[in-house]
């Protein structure tokens, strides 16, 4: 009934509008790239003074978290090489985007991550121990050992669990953002995805829906120049991913992703706009993946060490923020203290790995729980059968490694 009423109210009758027409073939061929918003330059000098407005405590907390994550990533990467965990993904070079963004959002905002957002998790309070236990998959893991390493999530922290198939989180964020608007909530759904993931069909549906249905969704594209081995030139044409957003009718910002102040300010602005206008917003961060895609990758096979070093020393988010803080006299502590922070984090990760590896696996029962909301009869039967089998062949299986044994 409602649909019929809509059709009669909107008039699509033809109306001649002369200004709509041109009389020569002049296709659009100029894809002028959107410029990147920047507040501090490569040496940490302030180049956009009006955005130097972030409280000193927050800046220092962000800086300390960024260097902590660098240490943690280093150690966990090495621990995979040593066989202590089976897989890991580092976030070298990209923490200004994740930490800065999450600091600028509100705690009630939902985050739909891709997989390289340890910065988002840890800013909201996810601990080193939680990360390590999840990577090991022991009984202390909040995820009950169900997921591969770095596939964590936290209902308490409003961060949806990482899911492997790329880009599926993006239309989900459109949906959540739709729900927030319809319920009139002061909440947004912020979703992360890489420039490679933006090639998936889901990206396009999500963007179109968000703008058309007016969802309180913040699209965060982290363009780190590589999707495993695929460089951006082989991934897309046109003006990076940001160039696509205006075509959906969406407000768009391109931000220098290694500039923490630009990230923070840009995201804060975007969030306010989303809540005010009840419409989505798109941000693309230009950054660089200094490390390998994951522990299953060896990136020097497809890019030069010189290229990696040029970003590591020439455009490094931690260096830029550190220099800015020093030059402005905002850094609360000195280099010795920073080194101590790094050392403490290393020790903490090592202790967590040691403690984590001594823990038992999740229980055998947990193989069957959570498939549905309750353990259905057929699963109960299979559990009984399995227990009988394990009892019979007790010496072939490491029963004592399961929490609660048989």
């Amino acid at each position, binding site marked *: 009934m409602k649909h019929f009423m809509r059709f009669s109210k909107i008039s699509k009758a033809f109306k001649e509008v002369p200004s709509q027409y041109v009389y020569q073939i002049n296709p659009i061929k100029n894809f002028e790239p959107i410029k990147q918003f920047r507040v501090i330059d490569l040496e940490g000098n302030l180049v956009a003074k009006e955005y130097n407005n972030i409280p000193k405590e927050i800046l220092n907390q962000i800086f300390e978290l960024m260097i902590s994550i660098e240490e943690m990533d280093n150690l966990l990467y090495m621990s995979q090489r040593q066989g202590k965990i089976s897989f890991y993904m580092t976030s070298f070079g990209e923490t200004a985007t994740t930490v800065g963004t999450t600091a600028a959002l509100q705690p009630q905002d939902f985050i739909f991550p891709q997989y390289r957002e340890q910065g988002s998790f840890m800013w909201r309070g996810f601990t080193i121990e939680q990360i390590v236990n999840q990577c090991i998959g022991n009984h202390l893991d909040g995820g*009950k050992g169900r*997921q591969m390493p770095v596939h964590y999530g936290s209902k308490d922290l409003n961060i949806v669990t990482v*899911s492997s*198939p790329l880009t599926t989180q993006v239309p989900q964020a459109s949906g959540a953002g739709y729900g927030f608007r319809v319920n009139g909530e002061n909440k947004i759904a912020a979703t992360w995805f890489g420039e490679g993931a933006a*090639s998936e069909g889901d990206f396009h549906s999500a963007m179109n829906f968000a703008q058309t249905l007016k969802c309180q969704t913040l699209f965060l594209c982290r363009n780190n120049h590589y999707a495993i081995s695929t460089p951006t030139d082989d991934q897309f044409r046109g003006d990076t991913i940001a160039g696509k957003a205006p075509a959906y009718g969406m407000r768009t910002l391109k931000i220098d992703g290694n500039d923490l102040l630009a990230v923070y300010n840009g995201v804060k602005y975007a969030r306010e706009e989303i809540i005010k206008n009840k419409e989505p917003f798109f941000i693309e961060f230009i950054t660089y993946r200094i490390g390998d895609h994951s522990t299953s990758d060896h990136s020097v096979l497809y890019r030069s060490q010189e290229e990696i070093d040029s970003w590591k020393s020439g455009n490094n988010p931690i260096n830029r923020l550190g220099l800015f803080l020093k030059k402005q006299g905002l850094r609360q502590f000195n280099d010795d203290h920073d080194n101590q922070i790094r050392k403490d984090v290393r020790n903490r990760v090592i202790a967590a790995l040691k403690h984590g590896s001594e823990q038992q696996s*999740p229980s055998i029962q947990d193989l069957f729980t959570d498939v549905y909301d309750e353990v259905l009869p057929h699963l109960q039967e*299979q559990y009984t059968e*399995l227990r009988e089998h394990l009892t019979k062949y007790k010496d072939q299986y490491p029963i004592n490694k399961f929490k609660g044994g048989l």
Partner: protein
Amino acid sequence: MYRNLLKLRYAYQPQPTQLTPIKMTVREAINLAMDEELAHDPNVFLIGEEVGQYQGAYKVSKGLFQKYGGDRIIDTPITEAGFTGISVGAALYGLKPIVEFMTWNFAMQAIDHIINSAAKAHYMSAGDQKASIVFRGINGATAYVAAQHSQCFASWYSNVPGLIVLSPYDCDDAKSLLKAAIRNPNPVVFLENEILYSESFELSAEARDPNYIAPIGKAKVMRKGDHVTIVAFSKMVEYSLRAAEQLFREGISCEVINLRSLRPLDRDTILESVKKTGRVVCVEEGWPQSGIGAEIAALIMEGGAFKYLDAPIQRVTGVEVPTPYAFNLEAISFPKTEQIVDAVLNVLKGAR
């Protein structure tokens, strides 16, 4: 992109193949099959993520990019729906794509193209539109990759008319079945296994011949036996053979059938074996409900072998849960030798 594909029809001259070595890994056998077919037919091309310059996500297409170039080994942006759709279109035009999925788990983003376009095209167009296309990738458990990378899709795809579904075990299977798949004018779903990639087998003299292609729809009896028939495919064949060896030492003789072809299923070989032994154990990695074992149970009932059965059929399957990650949980989620031995003993209960 279609323009590039058009050039292929006229540009390429097949390269002579080299003498094939005797022992190799399954990965190398698949590589060799693709190499030979790329050389044999200029319409064949490989497409997928990381297949070219990166040498393949699992190094299966190693060396092919250097040999055949970027027009025939095509690296794509990240979109399964995109490159599968493009490939089906190319196949309908008359080219012969080999579409590589990083894992069949990700092919779910492209399944509409596989089923609604490729599988049904020939029928819906009354024979006008043929899609000679091979979809291949790793299927089932891979170890330490949890739920979204470990599902077995054998029963989903083998359910669909219009598709051919193959699943190799050793090098002979991998090479000769893939060549058969590539030359077959119908769409083929080729289910590989990541753990088998690194395992070595001897490539028989027959399979070494670059002109040899395996018959589709024929299973292989890997081991002859009289007491129990074990039916399996892919990695489960290995565990079945080990179980058979273990049981043989206890005086039980098992016949192990390697299905190789899930659609069409080799009903004759299965029924012949069942009529001989009277007892069946079906092994699969996937979940029990609506699985391959369920189909085999039905076809035994319907195929006239029911009165030869001395015991109900036993199925050995993966645990009916999304695959967990924790090592010890995953280790008890999939069938291994012990479960197959147990099942055989169960099916023999009362027989000795």
